[in-house]
């Protein structure tokens, strides 16, 4: 019975943190009276998260993906509902560890590639201890926090 209420409540709560979007560009002089009314709210979440149920965030540690623009400390957006394809950046579970690599399928074999020449490709076998955890669909880097 109360689900809608909760959802509405959560929305209102979240709204407090969002950035208001104003209709006219800033200029010196007399401001547009319309600026008092907030037309839209831009929520960065909308941009990054298309499928909330299957989206997870992880933090990067290491330098081997810098060639693909992924740096240590970045927050990656992973969507598990995206179909895994050759050439994608993925998070994989490899022998119990979670790693971010580029997926490469060649001659029926799966490799995980780094974007840094000093790292060797990892050959992924079919066993249980190696699997693709999810596809990386975005990245967030903060310069100051």
């Amino acid at each position, binding site marked *: 019975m*109360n*689900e809608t*209420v*909760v959802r509405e*409540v*959560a929305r*209102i*709560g979240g*709204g*407090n943190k969002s950035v208001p979007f104003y209709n006219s560009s800033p200029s010196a002089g007399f401001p547009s009276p319309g600026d008092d009314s*907030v037309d839209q709210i831009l929520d960065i979440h909308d941009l990054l998260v298309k*499928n*909330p*149920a*299957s989206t*997870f*965030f*992880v*933090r*990067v*540690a*290491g*330098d*081997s*993906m*810098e060639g693909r623009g*992924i740096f*240590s400390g970045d*927050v*990656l957006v992973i969507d*598990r*509902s995206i179909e895994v394809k050759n050439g994608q950046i993925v*998070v994989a*579970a490899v022998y*119990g*560890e*979670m*790693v*971010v*690599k580029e997926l490469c399928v060649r001659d029926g074999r799966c490799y995980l590639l*780094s974007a*840094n020449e000093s790292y060797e490709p990892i050959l992924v076998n079919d066993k*249980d*201890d190696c*699997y693709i*955890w*999810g596809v990386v669909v975005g990245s967030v880097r903060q310069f100051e926090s």
Partner: protein
Amino acid sequence: MKHVALLDCNNFFVSCERLFRPDLGNKPVVVLSGNDGCVVARSNEVKDMGIPMGIPHFKVRDEFKDAGVTVFSSNFSLYHDISKRVMRVLREEVDEVKQYSIDEAFFSLIGVRGEIETELRRIKNAVETKVGIPVTLGAGRSKTIAKVASKIGKNREGVCLLEGKNWIDVQQTVELSSVWGIGPKISQRMMRDGLVTVADFLALPRRKICDLYSINEVRKYDELTENAMEEIKGESGSQQSIMSTHSLSKATNDLNVLKNEVTHHVTSAARDLRKKRFVATHMYIIMRPSRYGDWRLRGGSIDITLENPTDDSRVLLKMAKEAVSSAFEEKVPYKKVGVVFSGLFPARLVQDTLFAPHNPKGGELMKLLDRVNNKLGRGAITIGEEIHGSTSVKKNHLSPAYTTKWTDIRTVKT
């Protein structure tokens, strides 16, 4: 033809922990209850060791150490979040979903046998791919049969449809004591009457069941004989949230008035929570001006995560009042006040009444409070200002809040 299906997450709490710990894939894992007291979730490896559900941790501590069992304290913010994801994916796949507990949901399916099984496999695949939690799907012509099917399905690659002949075929192997809704008392009585399995029960004519047992057992009989078709929705199942809110007759900007109002709502909703034997993991305090006035964009709700899910009015009131004070804004004419509890868990998973060092009389005190107030009228006894003593709960093996706290998200290596 219409079927009822049940989605049941396998070893749910354990699976949530494993999602972010691929290293624990085939290793023995347990999750302990709210205060690290008892085992409330076991991986299959631990079940195979013969460790029973609910056993106090101290009794098996050494055995766990020897067998290399990884132990977790219950991480309710994680389980609640993953549960919401599972239910959301299910709702995207099928109509008429009724969540029954944190890790189970009923839904209906229409089709013939082959189609139903394909459909169940498709849903299983969707949930497992998108959320990453292993699930079992059982289906039949009633909720009770769907429950049986989901149990049998655990050993059949996670999908099982029991209907017609293949339902009759397993009836001899299904004990009445394991059937959903047949409690220990009734199943013992049935045992004395020589009824051990579903097959025994259904061998009797319906008239006989009417003579011997109550209406509940007759209903069970109808469900088990595929002669009862219940609606998925509209029945009282597991509840998603409990709320108490109210519009004030006159808007106010008096902090004390607001605190009193919130106290009233928290007290009343917490009473409801205890009556239904739930604890909450989230508390939303609603505090906002009229929707139509100049202040409509101010205020809102304050989302409080209860790290230790609780039904204790004293804890809830303390947090609620702090939240009201911190969110209070000068001049804003507050018109609507209330509270919503969500992320409800059965209280039995959280409270180890026997082993809880904190608040040893918390549960008892709340019971007494409710009893007195039921007898003498609401508000006969109310809670004073402060709670004394610590309310901290033992959680020595707590995993990070991987999905609900930025500081806790999983690290991945490059």
